[in-house]
């Protein structure tokens, strides 16, 4: 175990797209990162018929300690979602309410879909990501806290929104996002 008190910086920034695909056969949704704006042609895979439903502009990155050079890859992070308080009884909404009193703001880290309830985003990486955003901010005003997607009890009903450039190039106000799954 290193006893370095890590100071993180963002490195190896790579801009690209989060491709959202949906199967018209079983209605499943899955996502992946790509650097090319691929076409949305339908394709078959077993019984599934996948087609592109959305391309959101995004980026991926690593965090690296400026003191000991330890590097942590975030290629498994699809994006950060902000809770729109859509469900009273959602764990994220409860934490959000509690933290708002301490001026701590919550974002939800999502791995690539399909997200599994029993597979949280790795806790040590959430901690590092939280540290990174707090180290670079004026924490006398407020703090950030990044939590894992598995806290959202009902993905299918969640109306939280990703901080992605989705449909933003048109400069139109996008409509409220429909539930993910």
């Amino acid at each position: 175990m290193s006893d370095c008190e890590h100071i993180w910086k963002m490195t190896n920034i790579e801009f690209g797209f989060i491709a959202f695909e949906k199967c018209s056969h079983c209605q499943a949704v899955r996502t992946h990162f790509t650097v090319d704006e691929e076409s949305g042609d339908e394709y078959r895979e077993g019984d599934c018929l996948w087609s592109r439903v959305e391309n959101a502009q995004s980026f991926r990155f690593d965090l690296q300690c400026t003191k000991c050079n330890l590097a942590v890859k975030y290629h498994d992070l699809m994006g950060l979602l902000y809770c729109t308080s859509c469900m009273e009884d959602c764990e994220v909404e409860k934490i959000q309410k509690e933290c708002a009193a301490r001026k701590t703001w919550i974002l939800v880290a999502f791995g690539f879909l399909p997200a599994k309830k029993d597979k949280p985003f790795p806790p040590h990486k959430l901690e590092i990501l939280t540290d990174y955003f707090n180290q670079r901010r004026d924490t006398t005003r407020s703090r950030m806290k990044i939590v894992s997607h598995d806290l959202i009890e009902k993905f299918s009903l969640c109306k939280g929104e990703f901080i992605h450039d989705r449909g933003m190039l048109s400069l139109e106000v996008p409509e409220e996002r429909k539930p993910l799954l």
Partner: protein
Amino acid sequence: MTTQDLIEKIGLKALSKFDPREVDGVFVSDMLSDVMAGAQSGNLWVTVQVHKSIVPAANLVDVSAVVVTGGKEVPKDTVELATKHDIAILATDMASFELVGKLYNLGLVAK
């Protein structure tokens, strides 16, 4: 220079409620991913984006204020979310280019 100084010197409209703070540098972009990857704490973020996602993005990277240019109308839900998070949303009829020129003349540069 503070957000309050800028509002007075350039004639920006304050849309949300916020505590004034120090402005340190300027970041110009209409892409959230750019801002998340590149903006520094204290930067003034100049954009034409008005969707409410600008608020969590601005909050995440701790910019000092968002200035919406080109006279674009900012939806009520964006302003409300900003007030809730103590994020300054300022607005101007000037185009980004013209505003950036004025900021530059006031001594604000990219940080």
